[in-house]
């Protein structure tokens, strides 16, 4: 236990501005939401924590109450995992609402549980101990969900119990008397259907009460635990005791268990069918990929036209000066080559959001579990690995739902081998430049598509092999007893998904506007010095050219010259940056992956063997400092990121060398 706050604080100090995918509400921060604890002069407003088991509609309620007034900021005090929003009451007073990850208990097995516990106990620097709690449960699964209620009430904080999905309870013939329940539990109880906004006024009434009461005085907070350690009873008996009390309360409150959901039964008999289940699973995976690589393309073209058009517009209006060079060759080329991927990432997150909120993702995890188990992972790793095809960073955060620590580390470690969308433009450029298009299988599969597919398979196979090796070496140990709760199928809330996509866009654009922008500017600057007689040097004589020539001996064996070397170094900021870099180095005007000029220039610098080597290098190398940073945070130390960087670089160098030597 004493370890948790320390890790927590360490996690907090490194705030990367990306929020977990697993938690349906990732809310990047803005400056106006600096927490009172960090701004001593500001008025301190009460903090309300939103707690509940997964799939209880917690984030939907959070979104309903806060709308777009929700943020996560990356300064000490608030971590990405603390989704803090502001609730404006009708009388214009404000409350802070923190949306905690869904948990079933406080054993602190998983990162999510640890975070929830620390926030509730007030152990998080910069976040006051909550002044009130809103506990939300799915009333169709009331009894098991109430298991979370009892330890939470022991905290002695004013609490509102929200019985969500109350309409579904009644439709399926269930019932509960909330007044009785309130009396027996000693808390206020309201019924809601958070999705439709029913009952939210009563939640707001409770919040008005919280605002009236103001801040709770500082208090020694009792430690949260599933099990009260002072009692001599074994754990099972303590749970059985709690269960007995809950049964008693629910019986006295007239709780009638609803009939099982017909919809869920019918859909499960299809989605978990012996034959159809796996087929539908494959179809869903194919559909998601298809959507990323074909349907997102027109949107990406649209963004590209916008970026190029606006660049040209600016270029026309500026005199030929260093400023124009910086803006056009630096900023537009560098940032533009990354912003193009926004539609692709959004399409992926749209699908992942639909799959998660509808309840299908849990079924997919069950179907994938046996296969994943064989390679040393488990079903819950399916979602992170799938997300890894968009970006390793949210994927690594999503791995928090993997409860077993060894499984989680293995999942995190192999995630960067999944072909993320930042590799795609690099692959597309190199394939277009070096692989002639020929038909392989009828009209469907050409050499280029096959090469791309091959690179995806190469990444996936390496991930599998790596997981298997890890489980037999560094992460050897007993296997987790995997199980998965299958929530009832539900229609996803458009609002929740829209807010998530909006957040994703903000996070992505902020990255493009900071890290990638900085790299683009620095790089452009390095091509401009040392100036001789007021004009920039030739690229070979520039500072970047000299730096490249210094590292050239190290990459010569791979068939790369210094320009590629500079590209590889700049790609450490983000993989796709290499395109803009090479564009700048080769003086190409429109450095996007479709640029014929850039392809020609590349053919002058690489032969086929080296080009294949470069493809392989990108398939393996951990060319992404953001991933390293998020790894460090999620594993609470440098050991894993350093090991991973070394491992992936060794593989990349080794296989690129072999490719260059063979071809």
């Amino acid at each position: 236990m004493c370890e948790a706050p320390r890790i927590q604080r360490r996690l907090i100090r490194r705030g990367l501005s990306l929020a977990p995918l697993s938690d349906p509400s990732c809310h990047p921060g803005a400056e106006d939401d600096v927490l009172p604890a960090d701004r001593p002069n500001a008025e301190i407003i009460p903090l309300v924590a939103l707690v509940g088991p997964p799939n209880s509609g917690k984030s939907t309620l959070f979104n309903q109450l806060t709308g777009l007034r929700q943020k996560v900021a990356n300064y000490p005090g608030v971590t990405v995992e603390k989704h803090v929003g502001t609730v404006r009451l009708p009388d214009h007073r404000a409350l802070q609402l923190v949306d905690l990850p869904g948990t079933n208990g406080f054993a602190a097995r998983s990162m999510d549980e640890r975070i929830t516990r620390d926030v509730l106990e007030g152990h998080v620097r910069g976040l006051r101990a909550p002044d009130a709690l809103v506990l939300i449960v799915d009333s169709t699964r009331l009894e098991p969900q109430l298991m979370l209620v009892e330890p939470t009430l022991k905290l002695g904080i004013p609490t509102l119990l929200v019985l969500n999905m109350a309409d579904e309870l009644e439709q399926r013939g269930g019932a509960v008397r909330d007044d009785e329940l309130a009396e027996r539990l000693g808390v206020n109880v309201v019924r809601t259907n958070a999705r439709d906004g029913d009952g939210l006024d009563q939640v707001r009434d409770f919040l008005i009460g919280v605002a009236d009461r103001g801040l709770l005085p500082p208090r020694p907070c009792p430690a949260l635990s599933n099990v009260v350690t002072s009692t001599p009873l074994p754990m099972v008996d303590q749970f059985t005791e709690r269960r007995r009390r809950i049964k008693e309360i629910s019986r006295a409150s007239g709780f009638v268990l609803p009939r099982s959901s017909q919809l869920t039964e019918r859909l499960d008999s299809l989605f978990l069918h012996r034959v159809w289940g796996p087929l539908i699973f494959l179809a869903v995976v194919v559909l998601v990929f298809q959507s990323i690589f074909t349907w997102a393309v027109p949107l990406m073209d649209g963004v590209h036209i916008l970026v190029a058009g606006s660049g040209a517009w600016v270029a026309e209006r500026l005199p030929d000066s260093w400023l124009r060079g910086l803006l056009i060759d630096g900023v537009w080329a560098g940032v533009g080559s990354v912003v193009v991927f926004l539609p692709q990432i959004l399409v992926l997150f749209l699908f992942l959001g639909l799959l998660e909120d509808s309840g299908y993702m849990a079924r997919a995890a069950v179907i994938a579990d046996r296969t994943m188990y064989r390679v040393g992972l488990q079903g819950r790793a399916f979602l992170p690995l799938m997300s890894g095809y968009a970006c390793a960073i949210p994927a690594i955060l999503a791995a928090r739902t993997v409860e077993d620590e060894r499984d989680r580390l293995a999942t995190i470690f192999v995630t960067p081998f999944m072909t993320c969308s930042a590799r795609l433009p690099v692959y597309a450029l190199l394939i277009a430049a070096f692989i002639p298009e020929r038909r392989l299988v009828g009209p469907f599969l050409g050499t280029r598509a096959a090469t791309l597919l091959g690179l995806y398979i190469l990444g996936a196979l390496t991930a599998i092999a790596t997981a298997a090796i890890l489980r037999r070496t560094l992460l050897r140990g007993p296997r987790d007893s995997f199980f998965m709760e299958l929530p009832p199928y539900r229609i996803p809330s458009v609002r929740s998904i829209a807010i998530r996509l909006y957040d994703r866009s903000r996070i992505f654009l902020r990255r493009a506007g900071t890290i990638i922008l900085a790299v683009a500017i620095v790089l452009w600057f390095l091509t401009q010095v040392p100036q001789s007689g007021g004009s920039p040097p030739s690229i070979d004589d520039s500072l970047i050219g000299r730096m490249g020539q210094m590292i050239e001996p190290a990459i010569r064996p791979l068939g790369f010259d210094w320009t590629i070397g500079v590209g590889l170094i700049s790609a450490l900021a983000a993989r796709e940056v290499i395109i803009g870099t090479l564009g700048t180095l080769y003086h190409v005007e429109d450095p996007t992956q479709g640029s014929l000029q850039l392809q020609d220039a590349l053919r002058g610098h690489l032969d086929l063997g080296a080009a294949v080597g470069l493809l392989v290098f990108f398939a393996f190398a951990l060319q992404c400092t953001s991933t390293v940073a998020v790894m460090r945070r999620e594993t609470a130390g440098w050991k894993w990121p350093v090991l991973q960087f070394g491992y992936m670089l060794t593989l990349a160098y080794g296989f690129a060398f072999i490719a260059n030597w063979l071809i």
Partner: protein
Amino acid sequence: MDITLREVVELVRIDLPEDQMEPLLERGLLPGCQLCQVRRSPSGDPIVMVDGTLLAIRHEVARCLCVRRPGSNGA
């Protein structure tokens, strides 16, 4: 004991180490609870219903669940 699909049985005990047992306990899979296997996953692992909650468990774990028919004394 062979349990047919849809048959309601009572959980007697869980033969798992405490740390592996805890998440199951949290979700209401406790000695004394009634559970019923509603279907099998495509890989043959059981999916059980406990108090309105569906849980998919690996058959290795399911084997550690000791159950009896309600009313009977034997496990």
